[in-house]
């Protein structure tokens, strides 16, 4: 890595990397939480409507803890690093004003290219089977990665992960049961479950992509690949779902290159703060 006297010290670079990773975890949680909350009032039956909104709340709660920590990490960066960290104009304006940033700013003032969530999580709800498939892939990943993150050398990340692991265990049980119920259900439900799995499969590679900072926090994507596949194949075999044949994986979310769907999410999520900056109610 090139460095000169004007750029950040190694410890500052490490702090920036940890901030990016924290934001990635937070963005994953916010975006899936938002997607699941879109089901509120639209669930196929009341009990499942409640299940999804409860789960959405767990994700949003985790997002809050992570954004609070990300804001704390950001506010400690040297000013040059701060100025260059975000490309979104409203964030740059806020930072130029010299104020500290907070959790709400991170959620409301960043444009899509500053969001680092996995592409899988921004995919639309489409139907019940797509919603279940998306959650199942992510819940299995969360369950495994939170186990690892619980031992992260970063005490805040470790605490959030240990708390979230209990919730992820519950989420995974729920999504597993639904994959089986639909896959091993009627001809129609099986067909839809298989289609959702096939269509979303190309977004799963990104979850387990090996990353240096993830590894430093205890999550080794390549080492988790097999345990993740074990969970998937076990449930698929019980659900009579065929493993998707495709091997091409679409990535980009971790670098801020998103599918067209994220923009629509942010338009809804951020409208009030963009139209009426700093508003509270």
């Amino acid at each position: 890595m090139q460095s000169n006297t004007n750029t950040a010290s190694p410890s500052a670079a490490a702090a920036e990397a940890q901030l990016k990773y924290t934001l990635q975890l937070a963005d994953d949680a916010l975006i899936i939480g938002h997607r699941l909350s879109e089901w509120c009032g639209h669930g196929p039956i009341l009990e499942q409507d409640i299940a999804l909104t409860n789960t959405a709340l767990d994700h949003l709660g985790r997002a809050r803890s992570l954004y609070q920590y990300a804001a704390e990490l950001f506010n400690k960066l040297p000013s040059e690093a701060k100025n260059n960290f975000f490309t979104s104009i409203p964030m740059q304006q806020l930072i130029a004003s010299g104020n500290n940033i907070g959790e709400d700013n991170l959620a409301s003032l960043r444009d899509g290219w500053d969001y680092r969530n996995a592409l899988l999580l921004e995919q639309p709800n489409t139907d019940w089977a797509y919603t279940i498939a998306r959650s199942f892939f992510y819940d299995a990943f969360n369950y495994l990665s939170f186990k690892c993150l619980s031992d992260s050398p970063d005490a805040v990340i470790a605490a959030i992960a240990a708390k979230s692991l209990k919730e992820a265990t519950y989420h995974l049980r729920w999504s597993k049961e639904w994959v089986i119920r639909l896959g091993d259900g009627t001809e129609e439900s099986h067909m839809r479950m298989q289609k959702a799995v096939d269509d979303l499969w190309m977004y799963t590679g990104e979850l387990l992509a090996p990353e240096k900072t993830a590894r430093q926090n205890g999550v080794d994507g390549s080492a988790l690949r097999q345990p993740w596949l074990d969970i998937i194949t076990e449930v698929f075999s019980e659900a009579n779902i065929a493993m998707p044949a495709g091997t091409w994986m679409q990535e980009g979310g971790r670098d801020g290159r998103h599918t067209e769907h994220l923009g629509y999410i942010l338009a809804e999520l951020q409208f009030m703060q963009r139209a009426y900056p700093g508003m509270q109610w």
Partner: protein
Amino acid sequence: MTKEQVMKWLEDVKDPEVPALSILDLGIVRNVLVTGDNENSSVTVFITPTYSGCPAMDVIAMSIRMLLAGHGVKKLAIEQQLSPAWTTDWMTDEGKRKLKEYGIAPPNRKAFQPLGLFEEEKVSCPRCSSDETELVSQFGPTSCKALYKCLSCKEPFEHFKCH
């Protein structure tokens, strides 16, 4: 002002979603620090959320603030402590008794003995104590509860999930 005194006062703060229980019964208060002498005492209360997104935490923090202000605490900090993660194992026996009396079936096994797929938690009816009950929904009106119905007395009831 002592830690014991502050803890005693905190017994009056109820969980807004389960008003039968105080935040001490639930194990939400992790610690209280009191520094300085009477007039200049400053108090720090450490609380932990039951679930990551529990919306009751903001209300609980506000209730603590109002209550302690009423007892003359001028310098108060409320810190959220995530580690170790809250578990229903911390709920006191007294808490479980109050919960049942209130009509909510208390957690009945140790957390982290996960259920198998499609396995239903065996829960007794808090009203008639019958073991003939049926799960209606794994998720309930708040994150911490599941919905059941009693097949003996036919009443629906909530179960405080093991977590």
